[in-house]
């Protein structure tokens, strides 16, 4: 029996998203290997990692070389939708595996779904759905969108508007800002003037954090309007500081302080991180996904090099790990687990660094993600 596997952590090590994945993803993969106990059972597991610099062509070249030369079996992380979609095609062509924990695009399990890919942590549909639904339910029934003017922003806005309307709310306006703006005051003034209860930020990364910071300055939150982040991570909150970020609402599928399992893992993780950071949901996803993968190949006994076969097996097996709890993987490659709506604590409520979130609501996995009935994935038999 061939009991060797190679894991490729393909991530952004140097760019905009390096805090989310980057070195932390590699660490999470290592911890998964250590915790799997497979080495004791005669498995030989190697990890390679590389920086795709958020460039699809670099990503595919590295990935192709990994598959052809280094014999990598499985890709994890693969942040950045552009890179993820490119690698998705390649992995399918070469019959390898991708457990994507970093990309936001829900196309990975919709039009672009593949028998070789599992989308683990989150996607735009889920974020829109969870945040939109929960906030409307809590009384935030008028929305104004601040949307980054490119495909990703449009998708987030479109999905969220649909949810808002479906839940009985109303969208009273939208302003589209260019990607990577440094100043949002004009847009915020327009949002403020709209008097909407919720200002939905359909953007990401630096755009979102700057929006939040400047919203605080223009007294938007203190004026009674609420900011809803449609894609925000704990690292963003950490970098904003509670003073500015307090009161924000948004969805994540992992938080270090959810339960004993998450706390134990996160403590071990952060001790080994250079800057003592807690794991992001992307990094947690790398760990969780690999644990499930290891369980599956161990059960198969060996020869884990047929990607389609392994993924099919993974889909058959229910998932269970300390970070995301029990869950399943659907036919379209979507991993299901609960989505949590968090609100950022006030500075006074926080007990220390990284103690940032209050849990506001939970949506079960089956309701949080795009239902199969709406799926355009050819793998789904209707």
């Amino acid at each position, binding site marked *: 029996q061939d009991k060797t596997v190679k894991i490729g952590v393909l991530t952004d090590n140097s760019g905009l998203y390096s805090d989310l994945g*980057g070195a932390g993803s590699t660490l999470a993969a290592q911890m998964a290997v250590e915790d799997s106990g497979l080495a004791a059972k005669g498995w030989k597991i190697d990890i390679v990692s590389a*920086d795709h*610099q958020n460039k699809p062509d670099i990503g595919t*070249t590295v990935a192709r070389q990994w598959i052809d030369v280094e014999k990598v079996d499985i890709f994890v992380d693969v942040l950045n939708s552009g890179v993820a979609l490119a690698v998705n095609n390649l992995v399918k062509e070469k019959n390898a595996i991708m457990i994507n924990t970093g990309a936001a695009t829900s196309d990975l399990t919709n039009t672009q779904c593949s028998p070789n890919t599992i989308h683990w942590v989150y996607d735009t549909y889920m974020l829109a759905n969870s945040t939109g639904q929960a906030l409307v339910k809590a009384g935030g029934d008028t929305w104004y969108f601040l949307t980054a003017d490119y495909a990703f922003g449009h998708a987030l806005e479109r999905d969220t508007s649909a949810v808002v309307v479906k839940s009985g709310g109303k969208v009273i306006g939208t302003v589209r800002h260019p*990607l990577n703006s440094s100043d949002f005051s004009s847009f915020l003034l327009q949002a403020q003037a709209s008097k909407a209860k919720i200002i939905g930020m359909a953007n990401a990364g630096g755009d979102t954090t700057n929006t939040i910071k400047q919203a605080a300055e223009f007294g938007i939150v203190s004026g009674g309007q609420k900011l809803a982040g449609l894609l925000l991570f704990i690292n963003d909150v950490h970098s904003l500081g509670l003073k500015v970020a307090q009161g924000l609402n948004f969805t994540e599928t992992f938080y270090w302080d959810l339960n004993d399992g998450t706390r134990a893992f996160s403590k071990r993780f952060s001790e080994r991180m250079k800057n003592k950071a807690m794991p992001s949901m992307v990094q947690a996803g790398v760990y969780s996904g690999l644990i499930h993968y290891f369980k599956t190949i161990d059960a198969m006994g060996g020869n884990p090099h047929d990607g389609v076969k392994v993924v099919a097996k993974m889909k058959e097996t229910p998932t269970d790990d300390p970070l995301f709890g029990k869950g399943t993987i659907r036919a379209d490659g979507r991993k299901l687990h609960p989505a949590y709506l968090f609100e950022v604590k006030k500075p006074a409520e926080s007990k220390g660094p990284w103690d940032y979130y209050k849990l506001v609501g939970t949506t079960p996995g089956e309701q949080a993600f795009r239902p199969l009935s709406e799926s355009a994935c050819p793998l789904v038999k209707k």
Partner: protein
Amino acid sequence: MSALTDDTLPVTPRAMRDEMIMFAAMAVLLGLVPMSGIYPFFVMQALCFALLACAFNLLIGYGGLLSFGHAMFLGTAGYCSAHALKVWGFTPELGILVGVAGAAALSVVTGFISIRRQGIYFAMITLALSQLLYFIYLQAPFTHGEDGIQGIPQGRLFGIFDLSKPTVLYYVVLAGFLGGFLLIYRTINSPFGEVLKSIRENEQRAISLGYKTDQYKLLAFILSGTIAGFAGSLKVFVAQNASLTDVHWTMSGEIVLMTLVGGLGTVFGPVVGAFVIIAMQQYLAGFGQWVTVIQGVIFVACVLTFRRGIIGEIAHYFRRSL
């Protein structure tokens, strides 16, 4: 722009012979790659960038025009080809044609706007134009924004060569590269090239001799942009995607870096530079966070210590032009 060219030596018949020998050696070496066990995709990508850098070098090294927006031709041709191949279902040769035509059209327009500007203004206006284009591509629906055009079919070139076979693809790319390279080489050493050099040296004087210098510069710009576009179209077959990174200004910076490392205004410098930089990107990818820092260090080291570039330094050492 005279400081740029202090080290270029006049081309003598002997230099041309040296260059032909170098070229033959390069062609043979590259031809042997698939048998050598070297990973062909790496070489293919490097070849595309090498052609791109050569095209850029035509403009700066021989026309004295620094374009800081050459990525726009790469990206435009890439998007055009990708769209033609994927959405319209064109054959590879037609796909390439569409890409090259797109880049050529773009170079006519941008060249017309920028060519009358001098020196640093030229660099800035090309940078601005490419940035303008970047934002357009970011928002245009057919490019799929930051997701890019993915999974482009490779097809059969002229109905014969199956491009999904790496070896076949390799030789097609190699042939494309060598063809482009020869065209550039010929341009540099043509009657037109001579006029271009004299314009770079002293434009006022060239005018007083009756040359309409703008027309010559424009032709050089169009040639350069078109060949850069050809490189972009070839790259589509290698990477099988077309994305925003190819039009971003950092890509333009990389093109400059490649040419600089290899040797500005040398015939083979851009090729060597492209291989070095692409190899670095591939092999440093494992170094993670330090990639950009290392790239920066190379820039600085290059400018400070071997400004002539690798080939330039070698040529200077042997007092040859390469």
